[in-house]
């Protein structure tokens, strides 16, 4: 028996430009067209992913998905949720108005600014994806929208006396064209790579640390965001399950996920037609709500649907979008002064979390030793780890200078664009890892 079906069809064009040590390796565009048909049978879902979709085949795919739903034993229910499609923000600078040759020329300019005598390799990559998303469900919900995401990254690798270090910068935007003003990123990558040649390996241990907005954003994403995903909560694979209302951090600490915000994780409507909304995961230091799809909301409760996201042709999953720590009332200077002796950690090389065990780990691009509240010597290869339930209590000060950064987040084999952000924050007792020795 078929209780519900929906079809999400995404078609468009992606562009990729790769310039390596001054050579245009590729500057090409490709076409894609993928759809996913989901059918809710008498118990669970049947799902068919199909390339090169044509609406004429819908009945055949619905029948195939219904047969697959026959494998399932879990009784899936769908919560009611409001439907709404937000207007897509008008392009501030439309990547579509630049030709492939113009983009290649601009990227070459960024790559050139990363060069220096001690820099032995520079590489810059531009990516762009324009897509048209069409959705229809057996509930009669239908929508279509067009969106373009574009951005670039630049890498500088410096070497001196056998020591090799790198600097890496990236900028991405929704309906914008950050490449146009990208030269500063090339310079920053070059400066970081060269400065790291003189940095020392960090010595691990427990200490006070100040996280910059980029790293603190990754901290919010890894330490709280993943464990707040409704599917993990339902599976019993999150330490936050059953803890709504419990204090996890000091008053004043609020962590939010908001796909309706026009940042890099923006969705005008979620992947199952539900209105995208702001969800406060932690409110004033207390576990407040989880992220949900219609299915996980029905199973778990506490929170709002509207957080379903999917790559073209893939099954929608509960995902973060724009995840951030709200501004506090301290300043960056106060965070450093209160830190006294410790470390200031800058930038992110990614992170990972085991939400069931409640442990997370992420790496800074680099850091500075802090003495008497002043940043001093630079350190490299430094990481931070902790447990979700303990670490937020260590957030001692929250500054008022929030910034958002762009990245991609992987889960279940799907990678989706996300924005992470925070103001500077001070952790009073953090576990820092590094390969150096005293």
């Amino acid at each position, binding site marked *: 028996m078929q209780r519900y079906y929906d079809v999400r069809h995404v078609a468009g064009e992606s562009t990729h430009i790769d310039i390596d040590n001054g050579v245009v390796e590729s500057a090409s565009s490709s076409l894609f067209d993928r759809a996913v048909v989901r059918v809710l049978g008498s118990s669970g879902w049947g799902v068919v992913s199909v390339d090169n979709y044509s609406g004429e085949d819908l009945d055949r795919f619905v029948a195939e998905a219904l047969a697959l739903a026959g494998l*399932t034993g879990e009784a899936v229910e769908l919560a009611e949720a409001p439907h709404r499609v937000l207007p897509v923000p008008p392009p501030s600078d439309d990547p579509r108005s630049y030709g492939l040759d113009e983009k290649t020329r601009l990227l070459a300019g960024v790559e050139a600014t990363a060069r220096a005598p001690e820099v032995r390799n520079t590489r810059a990559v531009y990516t762009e994806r324009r897509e048209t998303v069409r959705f229809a469900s057996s509930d009669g919900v239908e929508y279509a929208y067009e969106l373009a995401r574009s951005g670039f990254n630049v890498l500088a690798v410096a070497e001196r006396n056998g020591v090799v270090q790198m600097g890496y910068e990236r900028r991405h935007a929704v309906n914008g064209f950050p490449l146009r003003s990208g030269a500063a990123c090339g310079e920053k990558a070059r400066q970081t790579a060269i400065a790291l040649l003189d940095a020392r390996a960090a010595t691990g241990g427990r200490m006070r640390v100040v996280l910059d907005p980029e790293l603190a954003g990754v901290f919010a994403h890894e330490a709280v965001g993943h464990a707040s995903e409704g599917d993990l909560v339902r599976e019993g694979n999150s330490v936050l399950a059953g803890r709504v209302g419990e204090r996890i951090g000091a008053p004043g600490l609020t962590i939010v996920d908001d796909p309706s915000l026009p940042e890099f994780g923006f969705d005008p409507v979620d992947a199952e037609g539900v209105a995208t909304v702001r969800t406060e995961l932690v409110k004033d230091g207390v576990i407040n709500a989880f992220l949900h799809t219609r299915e996980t909301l029905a199973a778990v409760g506490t929170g709002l649907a509207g957080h379903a996201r999917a790559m073209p042709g893939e099954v929608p999953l509960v995902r973060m979008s724009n995840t951030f720590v709200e501004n506090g009332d301290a300043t960056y200077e106060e965070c450093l002064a209160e830190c006294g002796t410790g470390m200031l950690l800058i930038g992110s090389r990614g992170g990972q979390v085991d939400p069931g065990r409640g442990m997370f780990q992420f790496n800074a691009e680099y850091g500075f030793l802090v003495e008497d509240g002043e940043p001093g010597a630079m350190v490299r290869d430094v990481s931070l780890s902790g447990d979700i339930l303990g670490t937020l209590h260590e957030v001692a000060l929250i500054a008022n200078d929030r910034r958002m950064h762009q990245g991609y987040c992987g889960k279940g084999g799907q990678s989706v664009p996300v924005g992470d952000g925070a103001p500077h924050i001070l952790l009073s007792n953090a576990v820092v890892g590094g*390969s150096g020795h005293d």
Partner: protein
Amino acid sequence: MDTIEAILERAAGVAPEAEVYLSRAESVGAELSRDRVRVGQASHAVGLGIRVFDGGRVGASSTNDPSRWEACLEAALAAMRLADPQPWHGLPAPAELPAGRLAFDPAVTLAPGAVADLLDAMMAGAAEHPSASVTAGSAGLSRSSVEVANSHGLRYADEETHASCSIEAIAGTSTGFEFDASHAADLDPARVGEQAAFFAAHGVGGEALAAGTYDLVLSPLALAELLEAVLVPALVGRNVHAGRSRLAGRVGEEIMDPRLSLYDDPHRPMGPGAAWFDAEGVPTRRLDLVRDGVLAGFAYDLRTAYRFGADPTGSAVRGGYGGAPSTGFHTLVLEGPVADVMANTAIYVRSVVGAHTANTITGDFSVEVSNPSFIEGGAFTTPVRTAMWGGNVFDLLSRVEGVSTETRTVGEMVLPALRVAGQRLVG
């Protein structure tokens, strides 16, 4: 005339050389949520990749709608005009390849019932450790085909099958996971379930670890994570010549323990990337990367080989359907001094969290150990609550205590467990 012939014929009028890569895949699978099947899945995938070549300029494009091959060819030509010319000595001519499929098992059928059997067997295996409960799992079966053809008359086709299953379990806040993947219908789903539940159950009540220096036994999984992050990219020719590999300029030097060897073995039947030809139609061959600790060479696709004056090594791979070729490996095998690595006291490292954050150039890493536990006399003893491990992949491989007899396929690698001494952990 089929699509491939039509593309090559049209391209012949506008570019001196052209290549077409067409892949198709059908799959069926299912996912568990706790102990129930939540979703049954199928997919129908197709990818068409076109490359055109003129005077050392290369242009590429792809689509998953083969009926739009004309637009795809136009995009490839536009890309070709923008690319900078590089040394190029031509696509391969047809060669006599051995007959037979290296990665195909007719017993892998796309039957939903076979998927359900895999899930049931994993659940039954997990039930051997009743203190752990299953949180999620999946199983999948697929069949795929590839065709590569070029304007020199080369046209090869291959088919492969794939089966996989994985499961996650939890006991308290201790988690465990396990998986198996193969081209053949030879998965051991009961063992997969049992192992995931074992690691979850065993980790309960883990003790705090005193910071210090320990002997470690890296499971093939943990070893794969570290090698994939640091060593594998350092062996890719393009990274070497672009200054992104610590191994650049060191062929002939000892870079590892002299008892370790690493090679790519594309002809190993049912090896993860087993194939007679690579993604550009170059015949594959055994490629020695590290022989008795000495760096023997690097891997190259055609473009990087031609550019840097190296011999093509048949190492082109394609990511996804219709993706452009890049350099990769087929079946990387690590061999070393066999020893009973589990015999003496050590900390067993099942897997690590954060290997992808390692410094890919220097090899420095700082990771969290998953499921750390003391081992003694071949048995798991006291579990450890948490351990941070900082080290360097190249240093790690420069002196090893021994490797296990048993190996395991992880991704494109076939690896033993590896024992190392003197590693610094923080609890």
